[in-house]
Each structure stands twice: as C-alpha cells, then as structure tokens.
C-alpha cells in the first residue's frame, strides 16, 4: 500500500524561531530553533519532563509558546490554522480513541475531522487501512476490547487517512510488539519518501533508512 502512493503535493517547510515555553515560572525550554524540510525527520530527545510533549503540542498549535512562533512555509501557524491543520496528523500521549466506539466508528470520526481524502462510506478503503494496521476483522469490536498496542495502531491510523504532509508523533512505538514497530517504521519511511515531514519523540531508536534525521536534545538546551 505504501509503495503505490504518489508524492505529497503540499509539502512545505516547518520552521521554529526562538521558541520558549515557561512552566511554573521557569523556562521549560528556551531558544529552540530548527528548520525542517520535506523528506526530513526531527527526532526529539530528552529526559522525562524536559518538555518534549509540550514542544510537540506547541508545534500542533495546541499550546501557545511564551516566546517565538512556529511557521509553516514561513507563515505563522496561528494565521493559517485551517490550512495547517489540514496538513497535520498528530498522535499524542492520550490516543484520542473513544473506548465505547467500535474500531470503524472511531475511524469514521477521525476521517471526517481530518477531511479525509477518502469517502467515509468507502468500505474498501476502510478495509485496506484496517488490514494495514493489523486490525482486520475487528471492525465492529469496541475499542475498549482492544489491547494497548492495537489501540495505539488504531490511533496511528489517523496519519493514513489524509494526505497530511506533517506527522507529529509522541512516542509512537510504546506498547507495540516487534511487528507493530516494524509497521510504524515502514509507514514513516514511506511517508518520508513521499516528501513528508515528521517530528517524533521516542525513547527507542527509530530504524529508518536513507533519511535525514536531525536530533534535538531538549535536556541539553535547558
């Protein structure tokens, strides 16, 4: 499935200038600068509490930085939140899965919210996606009955629903078995090869080949 997809048409630069966030009256991080081009991965590192999740949320526009700003193709994301969110897929710490909805219902909500390129009623696509994330034959299972790893993969499926050029992933590999990890690494690889951008936090090393991967260690910056 990954091989056949065409390159992204709307890949742009994600840049960050002088970003600083204050928490409880002290700087969580200061002076964060980077410039992420298409086909690049930014791997955020740092100890627990160094502000990785906060930085990701700032990149999503969920948290507003105390200083500095985030730019999508040199325009502040605050000024183009609609266009930016159309290009963004975010898998956060809490996975945004409703336990009391079935797998398909969860996917449908996600599709509508992200203005998916696929039709909600297109059973074939839904089947393909489920097969990809290893949840075939689980369409009508409540998310409550899924294992932690399966739920994580379901959350990750949001990245595949839309032609979003920017993936922001918070610890995408936790709770996954070897097969799951391999799948997500493949998906990221394909995403990057199509000209996508990704910002990832992960305690485990990511096994992605032939990709320019910048590392940013927040503990070092603090």
């Amino acid at each position, binding site marked *: 499935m990954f091989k056949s997809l065409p390159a992204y048409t709307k890949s742009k630069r994600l840049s960050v200038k002088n970003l600083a966030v204050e928490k*409880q*009256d002290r700087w969580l991080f200061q002076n964060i600068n980077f410039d992420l081009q298409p086909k690049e991965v930014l791997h955020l590192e740092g100890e627990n509490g160094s502000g990785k999740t906060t930085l990701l949320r700032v990149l999503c526009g969920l948290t507003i930085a105390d200083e500095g700003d985030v730019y999508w193709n040199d325009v502040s994301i605050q000024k183009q939140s609609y266009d930016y969110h159309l290009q963004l897929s975010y898998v956060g710490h809490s996975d945004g899965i409703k336990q009391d909805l079935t797998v398909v219902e969860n996917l449908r909500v996600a599709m509508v919210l992200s203005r998916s390129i696929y039709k909600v009623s297109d059973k074939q696509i839904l089947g393909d996606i489920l097969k990809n994330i290893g949840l075939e034959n689980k369409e009508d299972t409540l998310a409550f009955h899924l294992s932690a790893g399966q739920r994580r993969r379901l959350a990750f499926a949001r990245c595949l629903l839309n032609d979003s050029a920017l993936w922001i992933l918070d610890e995408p590999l936790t709770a996954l078995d070897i097969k799951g990890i391999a799948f997500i690494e493949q998906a990221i690889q394909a995403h990057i090869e199509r000209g996508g951008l990704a910002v990832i936090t992960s305690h485990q090393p990511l096994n992605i080949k032939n990709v320019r991967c910048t590392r940013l260690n927040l503990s070092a910056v603090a």
Partner: protein
Amino acid sequence: MIMRFIYQLGSPPYFYALSGRLLPWLSGLCFILFAAGLYGGLVLAPADYQQGDSFRIIYIHVPAAWMSLFVYMIMAFSGAMALIWRIKIAEIILINSAHIGAVFTFLALVTGSIWGKPMWGTWWVWDARLTSELLLLFLYLGIIALYSAIDDKRKAARAVAILALVGVVNIPIIHYSVEWWSTLHQGPTVTKFDKPSIDTRMLIPLLLMAFAYKFLYAIVVLLRARNDLLWRERRSQWVATLFSKEGA
C-alpha cells in the same frame, strides 16, 4: 499613535515606572475629592424632606453601585484586549479589578440593605436593583473563584478574560429579566433615585463622591497590579536593576 502608547504601556517596566509616578498624584486627588464630597454630603446638603438624614447613605451607596458596573465594563474591555492582543498589562488589570469590583458590589448591597431598613421597614426587599446587584456579586465571585482555581496564572487570566466577556453580554439580559420579574410581582417599587429634580446641593457631593470612587479604584488596581507584576517578573532584568538601584 494611540496604539503605540498602548503597546508602550503594555511593557511591564514602563508600566511599573509610570504607575509609581502616578500613584502619589492619584492619592492626593482622591483624598481631596473624598474630603470635599463627604463635607458636602454630610454637612452642606440639606436633609431630604421625605427621608430625613437617612438619605445621606446615598453618597456611599449610589457611587458603589455605579462602580460595580463600571469595573465590570473595564474588566470586559481589558479582557478583550488580553485575548486579542495578548497584552500582559491588560491581563493584570483585569484580574486585579475583580477584588475591588466585588468590594464595591458588596458595599452597594449592604448599604442598600441598611438604607432599606428605615425606608421599607425590612432589611431586604426583592427589589430589582438589589437583586441585580446580588447577581452581579455572584458574577464577580465566580471570576475570583475561577482565577484562584487555575494554577497556571497566565491560563487563568485567559479563562477569566473569556468569562468576563461572557458576563458582559449577560449583564444587560440579567438586568432586564430581573427588572421585568420585579415589576410583575410587586408593582412599581419605591424608586429611590428617580426624584423629578434633585437639589444641586445634594447632587454635587454625589458627583464628587463618584469621582473619588473612581480614583480609589484606580489606586487599588495600580497597587495590586504593581505587586502582581513584580512577582510575575521577579526573574527579569528590570526587576533586578530596580532592586539594585534601591541599594538595599
């Protein structure tokens, strides 16, 4: 030009310095206004021909009632500024107005009730003005409660700004509904201030007191805002230089 002034005012060190220079003048003016207003109201103004000397409560009650609304308007206005332009000073003025606003509202309520006792014979009448004032007090208390419930003070300021704006849309509606409710139930109530013509000797002290209250409000807000600002910016350079200049 005005925008530039607002932005300049929005810078904490500038605001701190300016307010420090303004405070003595404000205090002096406030004191003079209070002295004149009180003398005029308690001594010069003649007793009311119906209410006797009890009408002198007007000089405490009415300006407090005016201020209770005025302060809320200021809060809503600075709330809008804080949300739209993210001006720190607007946030600070908004939050530090809440307590003194609640104090004015409380004062208006209690003095209204004290005044009601000789006039109506009971401490509390479900009169439209008093009831609206009571609800306004709850709006103020809600703002204070919300602000103190949120730990992150910048977040709390934004929450309070939104709440103040929601409140300001609601105040006229609440006021109108209460007015309507009270006329339905009690017929026309004893309206205290709708005299056909109030004696100028009575009116002038009232206006003086109203101005004195406004200055008092400004003083209290500035005092509180300066404290707030100092604490928020305690790690900044300008606070450090301020304290080293004092040499203590």
